[in-house]
């Protein structure tokens, strides 16, 4: 059975063994060998992350329920939501490309927000729900595949490509995706996984007694 050590940490990029030190608020600890960020002390992490997650979830719903862009050419027009775009591409015999868009721009961001709510809502009251470590592991696994910010750039590039030939009608979802991109970036820089692990430690210690 592996025996845990309380005060040592190891750099995840170069494996240097280091002693953990307390940090002043808002500062980050960097590895003295390779310079990787080891951990951060973020002020008020749980409250801020929860607020940002709720706001992002609302914008996510709006962004996925309304058309992103509409185009018009001499009275004939078309407008699509993200889900419709994925569905249309599927029907054009492009199931792989359409699934890729579905997973990275719709499924993973939704899953990420749901998992964050599952963690943060109880934590706000000082509790932890069962399966916390599985949720944390899943969050870490899916994180690279959520690509809302890349999708936002994709919307802008499409806009520029379309603007010469068509009259463009920007949809509500265009602005919502812009807002969602900003909120998710803010969420990534305010959420501190170490707070969750610290609460889990406390819970396990309490149950062990």
């Amino acid at each position, binding site marked *: 059975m592996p025996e845990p050590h309380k005060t040592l940490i190891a750099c995840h990029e170069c494996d240097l063994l280091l002693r953990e030190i307390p940090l002043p608020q808002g500062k980050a600890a960097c590895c003295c060998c390779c310079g990787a960020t080891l951990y951060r002390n973020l002020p008020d992490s749980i409250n801020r992350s929860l607020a940002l997650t709720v706001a992002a979830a609302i914008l996510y719903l709006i962004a996925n329920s309304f058309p992103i862009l509409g185009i018009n050419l001499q009275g004939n027009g078309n407008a699509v939501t993200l889900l419709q775009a994925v569905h249309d591409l599927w029907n054009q015999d492009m199931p792989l490309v359409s699934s890729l868009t579905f997973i990275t721009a719709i499924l993973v961001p939704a899953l990420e927000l749901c998992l964050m709510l599952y963690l943060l809502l109880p934590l706000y009251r000082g509790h932890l729900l069962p399966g916390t470590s599985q949720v944390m592991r899943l969050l870490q696994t899916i994180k690279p595949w959520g690509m809302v910010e890349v999708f936002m750039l994709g*919307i802008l590039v499409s806009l520029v*490509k379309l603007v010469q030939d068509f009259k463009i009608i920007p949809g509500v979802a265009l602005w919502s995706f812009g807002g969602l991109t900003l909120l998710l970036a803010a969420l990534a820089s305010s959420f501190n996984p170490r707070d969750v692990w610290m609460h889990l430690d406390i819970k396990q210690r309490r149950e062990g007694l």
Partner: protein
Amino acid sequence: MEWPGRSAAGQGFCACHVCGLVSRLEQDDLAARCPRCNTRLHFRRPDSLHRCWAFLIAAYILYIPANLMIMMETGTLISYRKDTILSGVIHLWHNGNPGIAVIVFIASILVPLFKLVVLTLLLVSVRRGSTWGIKHRILLYRIVELVGRWSMLDIFVVTLLAALVQIQSFATVRAGSGAIAFGAVVVLTMFAAMEFDPRLMWDPLRKEREL
């Protein structure tokens, strides 16, 4: 550069890759799990180099059709175009916005090529046990991790245009099969970068010091 201290693996410690908890571990304990989060523990990512090579070689193979096959077909009343990635960028440069053409060029052509070359370089240097330019190599690794996802840009553009530009016979856009190969290259290179364990780059340096 010299290794500044002791490594976790050298002292028989292993950090959990999910929760970061450091535990003392027997060298041959393959079934060990993290006492805090129950994740399987290992000193280095198992089969990191082999898996990384496998994804990388698959990506190299698909990189060829991704660049040669048609990415997007555009039809209007007066014209019909078939574009590969590169011809799409050139068309955008001449008939649209050069700034956006540069962004698409970086995301769709430079970034995938950069990832393939850098990952190959990292894999070869680890295999040879090289300690050369470690600071630069770790920087390259971080850039690859950071920029990889942005290649997905073209996939999103194709999805949006193919769905949106369907105005009876006036204007239609269809995705080409190049998009499938290109999407696969992006996904495969992302998997390759995830499989690569950066700690392997430092091991030769550590062994030099600990001998």
